[in-house]
């Protein structure tokens, strides 16, 4: 019994220091603390067949044994041949200083005058050397020296700069982030060519040693938020860091809430736009998805397309999106509440017609709605896995067709099919997938509340949802800004309506600099 409780506790309560998946019995730390030498490296890495150890000799004043260690597949072999092996093996003979080379000074001399190449540096720690090798650089060991040279010659197969898959728009740039960190940072730099753009590197993950980069614009981003981001990243201690979702859950304010508190993007122009608003981005190597914090609710209902369209059109589009989200959340619940508890609202003609069409249906309104929605969810989930052309249509069309057949069979009423169809389509009006998922999840409790308590139930449910959203903060920023606390300028500028560009004189002030997350008990 105790162990069950303990397990439940572990699963539900989040510890202060986020440590998951304890490391296996032995750790690499002791090996990495050994003094640096080519021999040790060979011992550590020899097992893998894709690591190449190229040994050669340099003839200077003394005979110097050297070893080049690279990972085949991650290094640009051309650069190796041209800029390391050729100068050392072929051209060295003609170098003016070749006669003075000894074991003691070979490294410095090679670094300063023999090898060409942009990225060339010295390392003195075993961990750095191994890291460099495994990251795709070439490392050169000279004899028994306690230092080594790292030559940056990375080059591996990658996707390059392709069109982003999840966010496509009609009018705007088509570049998307790729899996390589450096390409991504370069895409960002091209958008913001200002020295105040900071790109700060971190490594996370004991086993994966994933590179990540925190970017923000100095003086625009709130220093509190930046420091909070670093603080939270620092508390993460885990073995693997394979993608952004690992980080997301670790640094979120409230992992239990269905609402996303961190937004993400695949597009450099979106990232640049958000950075210019004062947000902070986290780019992780190995995934094209970039995290952006802090995030507020209204942001998930925005699409970048808004900024490339005309102001009036964008206003209409935004309004339709809000309406769609509202309908997606509440349409089935309102239908259930009205037909089971509050039939007075329905005008008599409609009442008679609904009554007629519901003759012989064996399920109550609540059961009908639940059954249809569950079927819809299954279809939508299945649609994701089917091949592209069939997948997207199966979701809604399938639901409608099946619904129609069910109506003919007398299982559900036609009005329910319409309501469910409307709900399904409206949920696609929510541009962010995460928020759409949240809405889909919350729909069910609302329907049950409506089925038990009618409008009272829906009202109570809505208020509870509202209170939850009001309590939620994303890195110190209240989730429901700018509606509450009310920031009228931001509200008018960018939330409900989108003012034309010439009216957006000041940056929307979403972040309340007076409310600091630090010093708050239990939050942040």
């Amino acid at each position, binding site marked *: 019994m105790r162990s069950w409780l303990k397990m*439940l*506790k572990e699963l*539900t*309560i989040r510890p202060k220091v986020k440590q998951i998946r304890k490391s296996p019995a032995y750790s690499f730390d002791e090996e990495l603390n050994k003094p640096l030498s080519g021999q040790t490296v060979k011992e550590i890495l020899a097992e893998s067949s894709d690591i190449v150890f190229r040994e050669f000799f340099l003839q200077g004043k003394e005979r110097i044994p050297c070893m080049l260690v690279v990972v085949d597949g991650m290094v640009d072999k051309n650069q190796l041949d041209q800029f390391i092996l050729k100068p050392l093996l072929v051209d060295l003979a003609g170098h003016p200083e070749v006669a003075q080379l000894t074991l003691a000074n070979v490294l410095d001399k090679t670094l300063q005058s023999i090898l060409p190449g942009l990225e060339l540096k010295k390392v003195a720690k075993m961990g750095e050397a191994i890291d460099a090798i495994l990251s795709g650089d070439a490392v050169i060991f000279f004899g028994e020296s306690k230092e080594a040279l790292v030559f940056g010659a990375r080059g591996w197969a990658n996707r390059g700069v392709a069109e982003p898959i999840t966010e496509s728009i009609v009018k705007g740039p088509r570049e998307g982030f790729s899996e390589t960190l450096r390409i991504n940072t370069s895409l960002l730099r091209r958008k913001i060519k200002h020295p105040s753009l900071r790109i700060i590197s971190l490594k996370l993950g004991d086993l994966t040693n994933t590179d990540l980069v925190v970017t923000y614009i100095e003086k625009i981003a709130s220093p509190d938020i930046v420091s909070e981001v670093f603080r939270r990243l620092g508390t993460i201690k885990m073995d693997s860091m394979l993608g952004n979702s690992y980080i997301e859950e670790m640094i979120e304010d409230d992992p*239990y809430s269905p609402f996303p508190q961190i937004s993400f993007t695949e597009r450099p122009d979106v990232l640049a736009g958000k950075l210019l608003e004062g947000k902070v981005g986290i780019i992780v190597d190995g995934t094209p998805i970039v995290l952006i914090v802090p995030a507020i609710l209204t942001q998930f209902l925005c699409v970048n397309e808004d900024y490339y369209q005309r102001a009036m059109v964008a206003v209409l589009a935004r309004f339709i999106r809000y309406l769609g989200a509202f309908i997606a959340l509440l349409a089935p619940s309102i239908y259930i509440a009205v*037909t*089971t*508890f509050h*039939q*007075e609202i329905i005008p*008599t003609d409609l*009442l*008679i*017609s*609904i*009554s*007629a*069409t*519901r*003759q*012989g*249906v064996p399920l*109550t*309104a609540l059961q009908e709605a639940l059954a249809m929605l569950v079927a819809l969810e299954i279809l939508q989930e299945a649609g994701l896995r089917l091949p592209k052309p069939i997948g997207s249509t199966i979701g809604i069309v399938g639901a409608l067709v099946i619904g129609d057949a069910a109506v003919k069979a007398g299982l559900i009423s036609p009005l329910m099919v319409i309501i469910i169809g409307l709900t399904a389509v409206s949920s696609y009006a929510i541009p962010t997938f995460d928020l759409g998922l949240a809405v889909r999840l919350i729909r069910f409790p609302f329907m049950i509340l409506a*089925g*038990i*308590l*009618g409008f009272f139930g829906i009202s109570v449910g809505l208020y509870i949802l509202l209170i939850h959203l009001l309590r939620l903060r994303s890195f110190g920023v209240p989730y429901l800004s700018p509606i509450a606390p009310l920031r009228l300028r931001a509200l008018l500028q960018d939330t409900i309506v989108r003012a034309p560009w010439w009216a957006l004189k000041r940056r929307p002030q979403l972040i309340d600099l007076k409310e600091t997350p630090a010093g708050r*008990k*239990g*939050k942040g």
Partner: protein
Amino acid sequence: MERIRPPKIGLVLTLIACSLLLTGCWGKREVEELAPLIGLGFDLGQKPGSYLITEQFVRAKQGKEGVEIQDRTFSIEASSAREAYEKISKISSRLPFMGSLKVIVIGEDVAKAGINDMLDFAQRFSEFRRTMYLVVAKGKAQSILNLKLRNGLLPAIFIKNNLETGDSISIFPQVHLGHYLTVLDTKITAPIIPVLKSIKSGDEGIKYKADGKEGEEIEIQGAGVFRGDHLADFLTDEETKGYMWLDNDINHRTLNTAGSEGSKVNFSGQVLKSTTKYKVSDQDGVVGLQYQIKASVAVDEIMGLKEQLSETEWVDLLNEAEKSFAKVIEKECQLSIQKERELGLDFLGIGRHIEEENPTYWKTIKGHWEEQIVNFPVAVNVEITIQHSGMSSGSPTTN
């Protein structure tokens, strides 16, 4: 403030949810279980103190081409509305639903006996609305609601539609339950409720081909005046029309001068807009009420015009028309004022007008208002403006 720990709040919520789900849902009714009540009729029952309550339910069925409506009308003798409800539930498999009630038909006999008691249910029970229509039926309400109309509609639905379209003809008042109650509360004005009756082909000058049996129709015409909640008398068609004028309740009406004496040329037209204002006049200490009716009319028919007219003659003719129209309206108003004096019941609301404008004077005559009505000076002044005469000016003539 501490954050509420998830396990604890989860526990509390689960407990609440369980208790709600286990005990079941209350007050939950599925739509198809309902029998919407669309018409209610009251008559006096055989036993003293009981009513004959007619309830008209709708039963909807999915037919071949859409929805079919079946008529389920029951008449029950009971001493209260709830008792009737109980008796009907014994034969009906569905729950009576009051929220869709649109019309209450009051039989003549029960109207004379007093209607407040039976209307109490309608104004107290939350499912009803105060926008339900009230109508008095000549004869028994039961027979009206049991009619098989030629157009296939249920009588209650038909009555409601007829009442609503009455807006554009403005010859009978539309009385909601709320309005009736508010008027009753003033204790000065006598409530008025429109009257309907069933007619057969040939009645009232309307003939139609009756198929099958009788082929009756329902006609709404005239109104009933109440003393308190007892029916006192009926108003004729013209008196009701006068009431409509004086109560500023005219939306659109059709006017017809044919039949008024001494005119060779007869006009008919449609009232486009009409306002009635009143003023409390004080002439040498005698207080009276003066009505001022202003209406604009469009002439739709000119009959009896034998010759083409010049422009000035045309203008004169139309001036004459204005006077004729005014005479028609005045006559209706006078008839209704006369009736008021006759009955001693202030259905025109004159007392209320005086109270609004001259409360000090009103206090002096409040006590014996009913006698005062008989001699109270009321003047009516009608002003008609003819806006246009349609698509043509003169009429086609033979010479």
